[in-house]
C-alpha cells in the first residue's frame, strides 16, 4: 500500500513502519513491533489499525488478531492517555505493591483496566515489570517509577495531570 496516501497513521509513524518491514530477513517479524508502535499512536488496536497492519505485513486480519491476543501489552479497547500499570507480583507485593494499587484505585475511582471518565488515566494491575530490586514499582505508559509509597500516589497523578493541562 502507498502509506503516504492511504495510511491511518501519521506520516511519521507510517515512515517508521515502512522502515520496520525492511529491517527483517522475513517481513512477518515486523508484526509484533508494528502492533505496539501503532498502538502507541492510535491508543489501541482498532479495526482500522488491524486492517492496515495486516495489509502492510501481507497476512490476514485474523492472523493479526490471533497474534495480538497473545501479548498482554496489546489491547483492543482504548486506554487512558496515561496508562498506569501497577506491579503486584511477589517482589513488589512484599514491599507494598498491593497498597500502591489500592491507593491508585481510590484516587482514580476505577479498578483493573478501568478508564477515568475524562480519558486521562487508566489503571492496570500487571505482572512483573523487571524492577524487583526497586520495588514497589509502576509504569505509566513506558515510564518507570520506583520505590514508591502510597503517599506519593497523588503527586504522581498530579504530575501527569499537569502535563495534560500544559498540552491542552
Amino acid at each position, binding site marked *: 500500500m502507498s502509506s503516504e496516501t492511504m495510511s491511518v497513521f501519521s506520516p511519521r509513524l507510517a515512515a517508521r513502519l515502512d522502515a520496520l518491514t525492511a529491517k527483517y530477513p522475513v517481513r512477518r517479524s515486523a508484526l509484533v513491533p508494528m502492533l505496539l508502535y501503532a498502538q502507541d499512536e492510535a491508543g489501541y488496536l482498532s479495526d482500522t489499525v488491524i486492517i492496515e497492519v495486516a495489509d502492510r505485513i501481507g497476512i490476514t486480519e485474523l492472523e493479526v488478531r490471533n497474534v495480538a491476543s497473545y*501479548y498482554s501489552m496489546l489491547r483492543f479497547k482504548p486506554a487512558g492517555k496515561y496508562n498506569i500499570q501497577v506491579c503486584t507480583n511477589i517482589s513488589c507485593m512484599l514491599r507494598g505493591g498491593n497498597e500502591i494499587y489500592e491507593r491508585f484505585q481510590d484516587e482514580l475511582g476505577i479498578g483493573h483496566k478501568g478508564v477515568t471518565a475524562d480519558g486521562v488515566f487508566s489503571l492496570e494491575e500487571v505482572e512483573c515489570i523487571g524492577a524487583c530490586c526497586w520495588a514497589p514499582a509502576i509504569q505509566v505508559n513506558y515510564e518507570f517509577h520506583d520505590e514508591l509509597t502510597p503517599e506519593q500516589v497523588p503527586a504522581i497523578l498530579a504530575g501527569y495531570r499537569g502535563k495534560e493541562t500544559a498540552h491542552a
Partner: protein
Amino acid sequence: MPRLVSHPDEVKIVTRRFGQGAAEIDKYIELGGYESAKKCLAQGSDWIINEMKASGLRGRGGAGFSTGMKWSFVPIHSAKPKYVLVNGDESEPGTCKDHLIFLHDPHAVIEGTIIAGLAIGAKVGFIYLRGEYRYLLEIMEKAVADAYARGFLGKKIFGSDTEFQIITQTGAGAYEVGEESALMESVEGKRGVPRIKPPFPAVVGLYGGPTIINNAETIATVPHVIAMGAAAYAAVGSERNGGTRLFSISGHVERPGVYELPMSYNLKKMIYEVAGGVRGGRGLKAVVPGGSSTPVLLPEEIDIGMDFDQVGKAGSMLGSGGVIVIDDQTCIVEFALRTISFYQHESCGWCIPCREGTDWLKKSLTRVHAGFGATKDIDNIQYIAENMLGRTFCPLGDAAAMPILGFVKKFRKEFEEHLDGKACPFVEHVDLAVI
C-alpha cells in the same frame, strides 16, 4: 533511574562499566570496549569456543548450560543462515539484572553478540527486549546505530571481510517468550507458543536456521571473558561454576539491589551482609533463591554457596539469580497464591497440564487462603502440581508447579492453619468476594 548499589564483596566484571556513561560509544571504547571483538575476529571460531568452554561460563538465563558447549553444537556448514538470538525478555519475577545491563552497558551486549556470531559463523544477531523495556530498547537502538556508524557492525566489521548485522526486536508483554523456542516464535511474528524439541535450536532455530539463544547477561559477560582470559575468569568462581553472577536481591531486605558476586558466594552472607539483613530487624521466614519458579528454602537451608550445583543439591535451583527474601510477618499461602496467579496468567494454554493445572492451583489456593479450604485441598494442590511436572512442551508448567510443591511441603502447617473457616493469621481482611 534504578538505584545502583555496591558492596565490598562484589567482584565487578560485568558491572564494571555501570554508572560511567558507557552507553556512549566513545566512553565504552575508552574503557576497553570492542577490543575483545577485534581479538576474536583475529583468532577465529575454534579459539573462541575453546575459550568459552575453558571459562566455565554457564547460561545465566536459568538452565546453567555451558555456553561454550552450546555454541559448539552449531553445525559449521549450513544451507540456511545461522543466527544469534539474545534473550532480553527478562520476566522471571524477582529478576531485574538485564534491566541494568541494557541501561548501563548496551555495547557489551552488542560486542558479546558479535563474538557469538563469529563463534558460530552467523551473519545476523537479534537482540530481543521485553516490550515493557521501551526506554532500554531506545538505548540499545542508539548503541546499535553508533556501532554501525563506526563500522563495528555491517558488511565489513572492523575493516575485515566479515559481515555481521544486529537487529533489535521488541516483545509486547509475555513471560513465556523467555523460553527459547517461544522466543523464536515471537521474533518470527507469531504467538509465543513453544516448539517441541528436538530439533534443538542449534540445528533448526530461527527461520529454520541453526540458532544459538543466550541470556543477555551471558552475552554481556562474553567480552569480559575474552578480555581477562578464560582461566582468569574461571578462577573468580568455583569449580564447574566459573565467574560472577548478577544477583537481584529483592523483598524484605534492608538494601535490595543487583549485586555482582562470585559464583558460589554464600547465600546467608548475601542476605545478611551484602543486602543488610532482614528489613526492620524482623526474622527470616523463607528465601526464594533463583526467581519465582525456584522452590523455596527455609532459613536453616541457606548456608549454601550460590551456584548451579549447590542450590540444586539443596533441592532448589539457581535459576535467574533472583533472590527473594521473605520475613516472618508474611503469609506463605498468600505468597504461593500470588506466585500461581502469575503463572496462571502467563500460561499460553497450549499444553493442557499447564493450562488446567495453573488454573486449578490458583482456585484451590484462593480457597485455602480465604479460609474455606479442607485438608483434601492441600493434598489436591500437591497432586495437581506433581502431575504437571515434566508434562509440558516448555518449562512453564514446571516453573509453576515446582514452587507450589515447595511451599506446600515446607509450610504445610501454615496451610493447615488456614483451613475450616479460620482467618489468615497474617492478613487482617481476607476478601471473601473473590470466592
